[in-house]
């Protein structure tokens, strides 16, 4: 077993043990914190496919997070107000059934990622970053102006959505659901990176011109990765909205796109559990340093600076060595 595998196993076991620890220590709020970390890890795991394997520095991933959030918000809003989402040419009702919400969040995120990807991937480098950022801003201001769904104030959902066989209002059960989703995505990511598609995508990041010469289209590979990445981040958005029972335009903000990227860099770009390590560290810092000062981001900045300068494999690289890093 490599050091990285051991580190990943410890991290996963730690997340599984959180509810037990919270009950023993009588700190139920810890479960909500851990749920937040797991959902952010899920969003970052999505970005890690585009950024870590495909080398796509997207500053617009909050678009997909926001789409997932608003998919949940809009469907649940119509379900709780008993008003149809659409009544012509056919009636579409809202729903509070999580699997349907996730399906809608995935499909809409995929379509958005496809359109954004087709346009953005015509460019590379700084231009790609700027185009994805511009899309993020477009969605952000659209959400602000969308008064039917709360505009700038956002929208509250009174009761958490349903999942068959679970009481999602119980923090432990909702946490378990989010953790299961994260594990599924991590297993998918692990298989994807070892698949011919994942290997070709990795190769496209390294020497795109070389890939052309062996009959593979690097732009198409990156587009598929961008769509997969968007779907996962969209799912995270739907869960995040359910956690807070609230959606607002800040889910689309470029600051949030940056935050997801910070999670990936902090944990280790391209590392399977990098997003998990990054999200857990981020939420822990937010909680503990945030209790000391509201300017806790200054300390986060210093840590991020140290990671970029001295530990380019992120926390995972620092603990587990450099063997699989993509820095």
């Amino acid at each position, binding site marked *: 077993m490599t050091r990285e595998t051991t580190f990943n196993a410890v991290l996963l076991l730690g997340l599984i043990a959180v509810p037990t620890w919270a009950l023993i220590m009588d700190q139920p709020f810890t479960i909500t914190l851990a749920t937040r970390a797991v959902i952010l890890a899920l969003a970052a795991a999505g970005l890690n496919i585009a950024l870590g394997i495909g080398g796509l520095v997207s500053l617009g991933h909050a678009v997909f997070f926001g789409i997932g959030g608003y998919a949940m918000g809009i469907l649940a809003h119509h379900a709780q107000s008993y008003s149809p989402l659409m009544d012509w040419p056919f009636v579409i009702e809202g729903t509070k059934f999580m699997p349907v919400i996730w399906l809608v969040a995935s499909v809409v995120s995929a379509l958005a990622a496809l359109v954004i990807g087709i346009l953005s991937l015509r460019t590379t480098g700084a231009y790609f970053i700027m185009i994805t950022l511009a899309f993020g801003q477009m969605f952000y201001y659209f959400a602000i102006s969308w008064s039917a769904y709360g505009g700038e104030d956002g929208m509250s959902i009174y009761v958490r959505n349903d999942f068959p066989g679970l009481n999602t209002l119980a923090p432990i059960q909702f946490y378990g659901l989010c953790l299961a989703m994260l594990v599924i995505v991590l297993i998918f990511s692990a298989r994807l990176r070892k698949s011919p598609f994942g*290997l*070709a995508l990795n*190769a496209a990041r*390294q*020497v795109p011109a070389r*890939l052309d*010469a*062996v*009959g593979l289209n690097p732009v198409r590979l990156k587009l598929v990765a961008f769509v997969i990445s968007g779907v996962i981040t969209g799912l995270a958005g739907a869960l995040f909205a359910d956690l807070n029972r609230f959606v607002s335009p800040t889910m689309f903000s470029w600051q949030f796109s940056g935050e997801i990227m910070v999670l990936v860099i902090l944990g280790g770009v391209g590392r399977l559990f990098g997003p998990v390590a990054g999200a857990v560290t981020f939420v822990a810092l937010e909680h503990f340093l945030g209790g000391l000062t509201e300017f806790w981001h200054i300390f986060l900045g210093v840590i991020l600076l140290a990671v970029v300068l001295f530990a380019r494999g992120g926390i995972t690289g620092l603990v587990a060595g450099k063997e699989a890093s993509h820095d």
Partner: protein
Amino acid sequence: MSLLQIKGLTASYGVSQALFGVDLDIAAGEVVALMGRNGMGKSTTVKAICRMISATGTLRFDGHDLHMLQSHKAARLGLGLVPEGRRCFRDLTVAENLLATSRAGPWDMQAVCALFPRLGERQGQISASLSGGEQQMLAIGRALMTNPRLLILDEATEGLAPIIRQEIWAAITRLKRDTDMAILLIDKTVSELAQVCDRAVVLERGKTVWSGAMAALTPDVSERYVGV
């Protein structure tokens, strides 16, 4: 019928014209040497064949007009390029480098490792840590994994130790003997080319100046246009 048919090929890098009329035909199963001094247009010809630069003139592969195709689509017709400078995917292992580009056909991991046993021994090794010769074998293996009908080797033995060069020439000889793959070789070692190639085409200032059977390449032609 020619597998690759090039006639009057011209190409430019911006305002600098590099090719002024290259003629080159390769039939299935044929091994052809593309020769000439440095800067005479050999690598530019290869780039034009692989659609990495735009060119004018007749450029057909298996009846398809390559001008109409993007480079990855041209490669899918069966063009396998081993580029100058190897350019392996450094973060991937040997096996991953090979699998990343594989397409269905007789050339799979087992066949490549049989041709280059060194690669078989180092399947799990990150390619950046391979020696130059091993990286060259990997570059050839990677091209073979696409199951090409025309394999193009651009300076495949340049800068390698003599023993590694021997291994690579032995592999090329085996490819000629055991497969019906056409091979276009660019190299400066006339003696080795003479042993494996059926025909030679010589370029001078971006133009074909000599073409014929390898056995007919006399020392004076070789010295005049290739410098050896």
